[in-house]
């Protein structure tokens, strides 16, 4: 899949996931703390939705950053290094984010 296709597919997914995220978590504004988030995250479906959201947001963010940076000639020469770096950051951020989502467990 080409970079611009990756950008578009992830953008369409984000339109759905971001709308859900904003409506459920931020609108209307309310006091947020660990206990409040735990109420929602007790349902495994929300964990799955949030992990899918994390995946698409990282794909969109990192492929977008790659596209912006490779517009500069000096960076463009090192595009393979940049692509490798973006992949490493993406994988690490995905595991960190997924671990965070799974950390919202009710006390035993």
């Amino acid at each position, binding site marked *: 899949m080409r970079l611009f296709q990756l950008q578009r597919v992830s953008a369409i997914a984000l339109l759905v996931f971001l709308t859900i995220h904003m409506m459920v978590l931020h609108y209307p504004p309310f006091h947020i703390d660990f206990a409040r988030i735990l109420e929602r995250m007790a349902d495994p479906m929300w964990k799955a939705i949030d992990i899918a959201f994390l995946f698409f947001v990282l794909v969109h963010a990192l492929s977008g950053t790659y596209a912006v940076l490779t517009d500069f000639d000096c960076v463009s020469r090192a595009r393979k290094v940049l692509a490798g770096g973006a992949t490493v950051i993406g994988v690490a951020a995905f595991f960190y984010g997924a671990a*965070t989502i799974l*950390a919202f467990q009710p006390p035993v």
Partner: protein
Amino acid sequence: MYRSNGFISFLLRRVTGIALVLYLFTHMWVIGSALQGSQVFDARLAAVQTPFFKFAEVALLAALFYHAFDGLRLLLVNWFKITDYRRSLFYAAFGLAAIMTLAGAVPILVFLVQG
């Protein structure tokens, strides 16, 4: 060229995109404190609930809505080959982003005042 709608749209989309990427990793760092337990999480979250961050949230909303609507405009123009409407769709995306930002900002600022 540098005053054309196409260039302004291109520049704004990239600037908002970079701002959103920086926000994403900051957001992950804040929420990631859940790995250290509920007390650390609540303390870190409280640190970003100050009035300054509420105003920053409004700026974030503006960047997010502009980036989303302008991106949607690009998808529509490319899919339906409606390049003749590029300029009007740019104004529509800008207007929609402004309306949605306002609709999101009012409850945030009311919540800030009322607590």
